[in-house]
C-alpha cells in the first residue's frame, strides 16, 4: 500500500530484492556445491577451509564492505585494472559482490552440516544401486533438503537485512543504490516516521520469502 503510493519507496524495494536476490543466486550456486564437497570428501587442507568458512559465517558485514570497498576503489588492486568484469564502486553490482561474500559461507556451512548429518551409509547404498557420482551427490542433497533449504534461508536473511556493506560499497545514493536498510538509517536520522513503515516492509518481505522457501522443503514437516 505504502509502496504503491510512493514510487521512490517502490524503487527502493525493487532494488533491495534485485541486489539480494542476485547475490543469493550466486551464493547458492557457489555455496551448495562447496558445502556438499566439504561434507562428502576428505582432502588435505579441508580443516583449514572449514575453519575459514566458519569464520566467514560470522563476518561483520561492515568489514566485508570495507574489504570490497578497498578492492574496488579506483586505486585498489581490482579497481585499478579497469576491467569490464570488475564492478565500479557505488553501483548495485558492487553491492551484489559484497553480499555474495557475506552469504555464501552461510549457505556452504549449513549445507555441509546438513550433508554430514546424514547416515554415512547412505552414500554407499545409493552407489550400490548404480548411482554415478553426480547422481549420488544429487540424492544426498535431496535427502538433506531440509538443511539445504535452511542454508539458503540463512543466506538470504543475512543479506536482505544487512546495512554495513551496502552502505559502504553502495553509498545509499538516491534512485541508484538506496536499499531498504540504508533508507531506514537515513529516514531515522532525519527523524522521519517513514523509517518504521520501511521496517515493516522489510519484515514482510522476509516473512513472505521464508514461507515460500519452506515449501521447497516439501512434505517433511507434515509427517
Amino acid at each position, binding site marked *: 500500500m505504502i509502496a504503491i503510493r510512493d514510487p521512490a519507496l517502490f524503487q527502493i524495494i525493487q532494488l533491495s530484492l534485485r541486489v539480494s536476490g542476485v547475490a543469493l543466486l550466486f551464493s547458492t550456486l557457489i555455496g551448495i556445491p562447496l558445502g556438499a564437497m566439504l561434507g562428502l570428501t576428505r582432502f588435505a587442507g579441508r580443516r583449514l577451509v572449514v575453519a575459514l568458512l566458519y569464520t566467514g559465517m560470522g563476518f561483520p558485514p561492515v568489514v566485508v564492505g570495507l574489504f570490497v570497498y578497498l578492492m574496488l576503489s579506483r586505486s585498489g588492486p581490482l579497481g585499478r585494472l579497469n576491467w569490464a568484469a570488475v564492478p565500479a564502486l557505488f553501483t548495485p553490482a558492487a553491492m551484489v559482490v559484497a553480499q555474495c561474500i557475506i552469504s555464501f559461507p552461510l549457505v556452504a556451512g549449513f549445507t555441509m552440516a546438513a550433508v554430514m548429518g546424514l547416515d554415512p551409509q547412505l552414500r554407499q547404498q545409493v552407489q550400490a544401486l548404480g*548411482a554415478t557420482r553426480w547422481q549420488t551427490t544429487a540424492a544426498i542433497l535431496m535427502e538433506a533438503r531440509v538443511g539445504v533449504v535452511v542454508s539458503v534461508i540463512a543466506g538470504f536473511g543475512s543479506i536482505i537485512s544487512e546495512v554495513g556493506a551496502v552502505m559502504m560499497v553502495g553509498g545509499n545514493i538516491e534512485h541508484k543504490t538506496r536499499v531498504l536498510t540504508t533508507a531506514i538509517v537515513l529516514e531515522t536520522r532525519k527523524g522521519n516516521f517513514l523509517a518504521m513503515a520501511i521496517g515493516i516492509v522489510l519484515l514482510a518481505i522476509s516473512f513472505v520469502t521464508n514461507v515460500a522457501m519452506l515449501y521447497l522443503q516439501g512434505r*517433511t514437516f507434515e509427517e
Partner: protein
Amino acid sequence: MNETTAAQTRDPIFRLQGVNKAYNGRCVLHVGSLDIRRGEVFALVGPSGAGKSTLLRLLNFLEPPTSGAIRFLDVPFSASQPMPLDLRRRVTTVFQRPVLLNRSVRENVKYGLHLRGRRDGDRLVDATLEQVGLHELSDQRARTLSGGEAQRVALARAMVLKPDALLLDEPTANLDPYNVGLIEEIVRRLNREQGTTLVLVTHNVFQARRLADRVALLLEGQVIEEADVETFFQSPRDPRTGAFVRGEMVY
C-alpha cells in the same frame, strides 16, 4: 546331486585372483583365488571382522582392491581399471542395515530404475512390491516402516533392477524369525526362477546351510575353505571349518 555338478561346470561370474585390500597399510583381505559361479548361491561365513563385508564391497565395485583383480563377466576390475557403469549396474547389494530414502516405499523401489533413466517401471515396481508382501504399504513413507519391512523394501529396490548378481550382507541379522523366513524364501525363489547369482554373507551357519550351494569360510581376511554345502558341513577338510560349524572358537 546332478544340480551340484551342473553348478560346478558353470562359468564363473566373479573370478578373484590375488585380491588384496588394505586400509592404512593394514591388510584386511587376502584372497588368492576364488570363483563365484553363475547362478549359484554362494555363502561366505566367518566371525565378525573376518573381511566378509569388505569382500562384498569389492564385489559391488564400491571400492577397488589394493592389488590384484576381480573379473566380472570377464571384465577386470582393479585399482587402475574401474568397472564400466553398465556392468557395475548389473550387481547390487542388500545391506545389513538398510538406509532408505526419505520418500514413499514406491519411490524407494523405483529409485534404481530412475538412476538408469527408466521411467516405464511402474508395473515392475508393483509386481516386486507384491513379491515382498508390501503392496499395501507402497504409498507409506519409508521412514515409518518397521525393521523387517524396511529390509524387504531394500530387497525390493534391489530385485527390481534384475541384477545378474545380488549380494546380501547379513540381510536378516537384526530381524525376527517371521521376516527371516520371508526374506529367505524370496531370495531362494529369485535364485531358482530368475537364475540370479546370490552371494550371501552371514555369521549364521544355519542360514548358510539352508540357502547355499557352496560355502566358504573366511578367517582374518583369508579363505580357509571353500566347498559345496554338504562337504563343508559334513566332512570339512580344515579343522577350523569343523570348529566353526560346531560353534567353537576358531581364532
